[in-house]
Structures are given as structure tokens and as C-alpha cells.
């Protein structure tokens, strides 16, 4: 900084300045999708995310796509498989 600006500042100051995620197979995820996208499936890993089990809603992710699924029975079976009561 320049001396000029430092002095200007100090002068003004003055002296007083003092859920759960479950891996699944592609076959299981295909159960009852409602919003299937174009890129889902085709051999890669599939992730199922159940944010709110009570609502019976799943998000199924594969590749760079996802679909939302509402299937309380499927959610129940996944929870039982995962040992969640």
C-alpha cells in the first residue's frame, strides 16, 4: 500500500481507535418405474436411494440418469432384505 493511503486511513481512525442407500440389480430396479429416462440400465451399477421409506418412494440411478419410483411393496422388500424393520 502507499504511504498516502495508509496515512489517510489512520488519520480518519483517530487516536481513539481502539436414509439409506441400497445397491440393487438392474432387474430389480425395473419393477415399476414412473419416469423412466433414456439412459437407465445397460449393464452398469445401479443405485437405489430411499430417502423416505414411509412414502414408498425410491430413486433409481444408473449411468448418468435416474428415475423416481413409487412402490411401497418394493420398498418393503428392500428394507426386509437390508434387515431394516
Amino acid at each position, binding site marked *: 500500500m502507499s504511504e498516502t493511503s495508509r496515512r489517510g*486511513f*489512520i488519520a480518519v481512525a483517530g487516536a481513539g481507535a*481502539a436414509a439409506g442407500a441400497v445397491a440393487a440389480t438392474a432387474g430389480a430396479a425395473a419393477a415399476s418405474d414412473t419416469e423412466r429416462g433414456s439412459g437407465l440400465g445397460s449393464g452398469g451399477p445401479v443405485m437405489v436411494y430411499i430417502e423416505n421409506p414411509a412414502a414408498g418412494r425410491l430413486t433409481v*440411478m444408473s449411468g448418468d440418469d435416474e428415475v423416481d419410483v413409487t412402490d411401497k411393496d418394493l420398498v418393503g422388500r428392500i428394507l426386509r432384505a437390508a434387515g431394516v424393520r
Partner: protein
Amino acid sequence: MSSHREAPEISKDPVADGTDVYAFVSPDKPSTVTLIANFIPLQKPDSGPNFFEFGDDVLYEIHVANSGRATPDISYQFRFSTRIRNPRTFLYNTGPIQNISDAAWNRPQTYTVTQVTRRGRQTTRKVLGTNLPCPPVNVGVRSTPDYPALARQAVRFLPAGKRVFAGQRADAFHVDLGSIFDLGALRPFNEAHLINMPEMNGRNSTQSFNVHSIALQIPIEQLTRTGRRPSGVSDPAATIGVWATASRQKSRVLDRKQARYVGVGPWKQVSRLANPLFNEVIVPMAEKDRWNIRPPSGDKQYQRYVYRPELAGLLPQLYPGVFPRLAAYRKERADLHAILLTGIPAGVVDGFQNFTGPTPADMLRLNVAVPPTAEPNPLGLVAGDAAGFPNGRRVGDDVVTVELRAVAGLTIPLVDPSFTPDDAAAAVEDGTSNTNAPLLANFPYLGHPGGGYQTEPGTTSVGSGQR
């Protein structure tokens, strides 16, 4: 700063952490605009054996809005791919890397650039380049003996007169992080601080640290909504909005076969950056992570923090008696709202405007009709140099000083002539200057990264007066 580790979540994910965005009319090629987005903050050059690199699992993007809606009318997407040439060595390089395709470089990284253009409901994707090479990092004098040559080889031409570079660069941003985040201290004004100490020069915290940069140089007419160069500064199509993002796939899982995490699901934004320091010092800590995952077109919910910035209230408290007029100012900060969220309308600054419409959105706004300045003033528009920040941002612009002074009230008279700023508003600064690597005169403009071998360690210090 300016967005290095600026939010709790992204500070734990440095590979996706955007640090700075620049947008300026290229000084040596004024028929083009240069867009730069930096990522991976505060890279210590001597960080072997696993040096810094772009994330193969990250989608990096530079967005351009040109239709006044603060939505991405054009996005340039970058995806990286890294391979290991020799799986039987622990070394990054098995000998001097003499050129960018040298087999001695054991971990080359390449990338693909895709342009996504959106007009109404129509989206067009065009791959601009594939298998484009990054340079290696600057390992040191033995491993990368001619680093400038390696960097030059990584500058590639893309269709329709565009150029691209992606790789390590020296950080060009300067700031005194150690002081500012120690209760808002500015070392040159230590004596005036509430907890006063002897004054001293600022310390540039980013000096000697590197970043990873993505740089594009694009003919102006490819960025405007009319497809033409604007007729003049007042042309409504002359201003573009620019921001950068990084995205990760929505979920990831540890793949035991590959011994690494793999991404699954759609790409979700995890980092966003346009104006320096916006998320850093405007947005409250509790909202920073959410801000990072949102689009700029939804920034209306954050404008209250621009109208009444916390820092403007802190300055008079931290520096008692220094900012009495700022402390007494009760109106909304329309000056900051224009600078950061809408652009400056015509009639505020003589012969200048970079207004992009009423939608409040954090974007760098560049009026591409303003020609480059022969001798740039680092204080940009507030110093009468309309080719600099906040008209876009050049790599040499001193954005910390500009924003400190603006928050301190220096720009209020632009919209409220009845206000006279405190004298200190024109003097306040953190006391740092650009002591980083020298900038280049040509694309990609950012200086060459510091070398690992040449790096000297900093100090570990418990200072006087600290119990």
C-alpha cells in the same frame, strides 16, 4: 478467497472447488473473449508423489448467458481422463518430461470439450475437441526442465477460431487470508482495529500456490445472442453473463474391483462461481452449501444479503470511528446490487453499461464492446478503466481492494449522490499486491505454475501477543 474453500462442503472436495473466474476481451486479440475458470485451490507445488490433477469424475463447465435471463444459453463442458503408462513404478515420471507426449510422463491426462447451446426448448450438443492433452504439473527442474514449452504445447485450436488450455497454472489472485479471517484485520490498518496491533504490510497468502485452470478463447460473435459483434457499448446485446460450475454424479459407491469410487446417476452441481467473494463474504455460512448447488437465476433469495451486507456492518465495529458515514447509512445497497446481481444500467457511469436485465443473478458481466486497455488499472471500473472488474474480470484486477472499497461505501454515490463516503473508503485495502508468478502476455495469460523442487517451505509461527 476469492472462492478458495469458501463453503463447508466444497472445502472438503478440492478437486471440484472453483476458485476464480475471469472474463475479458483478449488484450492481444480483441476480436475474442477469454474465459478462465480455476479449480483445486492452494496447491503446494512440492506435493509429490501424487500431484494435483483434474477429477475424471467431475464435470467442469463454463456457462454464458446472453439472452437476459441468467440461464446458460451456452455451456462449455470439460471431461477429463487419466491413464497410467507404466503400472510397475511409483513415479509420476520416469525421466525428464521433454514434451507433452513424452513416454517418461507416467500419468498423462486428456480431456474432451463439448459445447451445449440452448435456444428455447432446443438443446444442441457439439463436441469441439477430444483427446486434448493437459500438460504435466511443474514437478521441478529435473522432471520438467522447460515448463513453458510444455504449457505452450497444451494450447490447442478448436473449430471456428477458438483456443483452449487446461492444466496447472500459478494462482493470480492475491489476498491476505491470514489477516482477513483473523477478525477482519487489514494489516496496514492494524492500529485502527478494535484489537489494535502495529501496522504492517499485507501478506499474500496465495503467493507460490498453484491452481488448475480451464481457459477458452472465443470469437466475440460466437458469444452474443445476435451472433454478431455489438455495435457499441450501449448495444443491449453487448453484455454477456459468465459463471463456472463443477458437478458430480448424484451418488457414488466404492467399487472393490476397481479400488476406487465410481459415480452413478445424473450430474449435480456442487460448486458455482462468478463474482469473486460472493459466496465467500456475502452469503451466510449456513446457506453457502445450498448456494453452491443452485443456479444463478435463483439468486433473488440471496439479494437481501447484497442489499445489507454483513461486512458493511462489521467494518464500523472493527474499526471504531473510521466509517461513521457508512455506519449511519440505512438505505439498501443498490450500488452493490447493480454491481453483483444485475449489472450497471446505462446512465450510472458515463459511457458504460453492463446491464443484463432485472433478474438478480451472480454472474460476471462483460460488455464485450469495451476494448482492452493499453495500460490496465487493477482497480478497474472504479478507477475509470471500464475494461476491468466489474466489467468482467481480468487476471490482474485487484478484486479484493475493489470489493472492500465498494462494501465500505465508495460506490454508493453512483446510485445515491446524497451520500459522501468516509475518507477511509477510498483507502481501505488488505495491503497485498500481485507478488504471484508473472502473468503471460498471451493466452492463457495466467503465469506458469511454481515448480516442486524450487518450492521453499513457509513458516510455522506462534506470534507475539498470542498466549
